[in-house]
């Protein structure tokens, strides 16, 4: 959390002290890269969620990829928002709010995943083994 805020303050400082267009393009490029990376991870998540054979492996895809992709996209958007127009306190505040969302997702999503996993284990969801489904399909 602190790391997030420090990083956004760092970018703010860069924007504040340098007014060259290069910084503008660099930051925009960075944010687009982050968003595209996030989308890529989300693609992985969704493929994982539908293609993995059992609940636990799907959980693996959903829990990690989902959180990471959300964080990346949101961070990219935060940078983009910081970069629009003239720098002002309101803009930085919006950025900090987006960072707060990142933190909440960072805490909340894995907790939810953990709870669901726990419940799935408790209710004895069958896990996939090498010979359970694959062989049936071959026959």
């Amino acid at each position, binding site marked *: 959390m602190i790391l997030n805020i420090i990083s956004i303050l760092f970018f703010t400082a860069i924007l504040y002290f340098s007014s060259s267009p290069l910084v503008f393009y660099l930051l925009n490029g960075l944010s687009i890269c982050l968003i595209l990376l996030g989308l890529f991870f989300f693609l992985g998540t969704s493929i994982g*969620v539908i293609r993995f054979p059992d609940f636990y492996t799907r959980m693996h895809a959903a829990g990690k990829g989902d959180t990471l992709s*959300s964080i990346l996209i949101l961070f990219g958007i935060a940078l983009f928002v910081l970069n629009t127009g003239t720098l002002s306190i309101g803009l930085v505040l919006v950025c900090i*709010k987006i960072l707060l*969302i990142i933190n*909440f997702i960072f805490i909340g999503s894995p907790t939810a995943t953990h709870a669901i996993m726990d419940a799935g284990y408790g209710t004895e969801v069958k896990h996939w083994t090498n010979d359970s489904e694959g062989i049936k399909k071959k026959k």
Partner: protein
Amino acid sequence: MVNFFIFVGIIILILMMVVFYRVLKGPTVMDRLLGVNVIGTKATVLLVVMGVIFERVDMFVDIAIGYGLLNFIASIGAAKYFQHHKVLQPRSQWEEDLTKS
């Protein structure tokens, strides 16, 4: 730049639809819960994206914070339900047919 964000939103929505397939089919309830959890998180992101598109991020970000805070309560509640009632499938002929097909 707005077009880029519309593009991002559409991609997120299409991938959400893909995840929604798991909610639809999901052999067990847990799979559905998993899918809904992913959809919820992505809805938060989509809210912020919409804010950028409408150029009113300062308005939409509040809703997104609320979402991010409340999103996981439902998952925890459902998980606690299953920790108390350790039954995955309710006994119902119809439901069994559904999962077989």
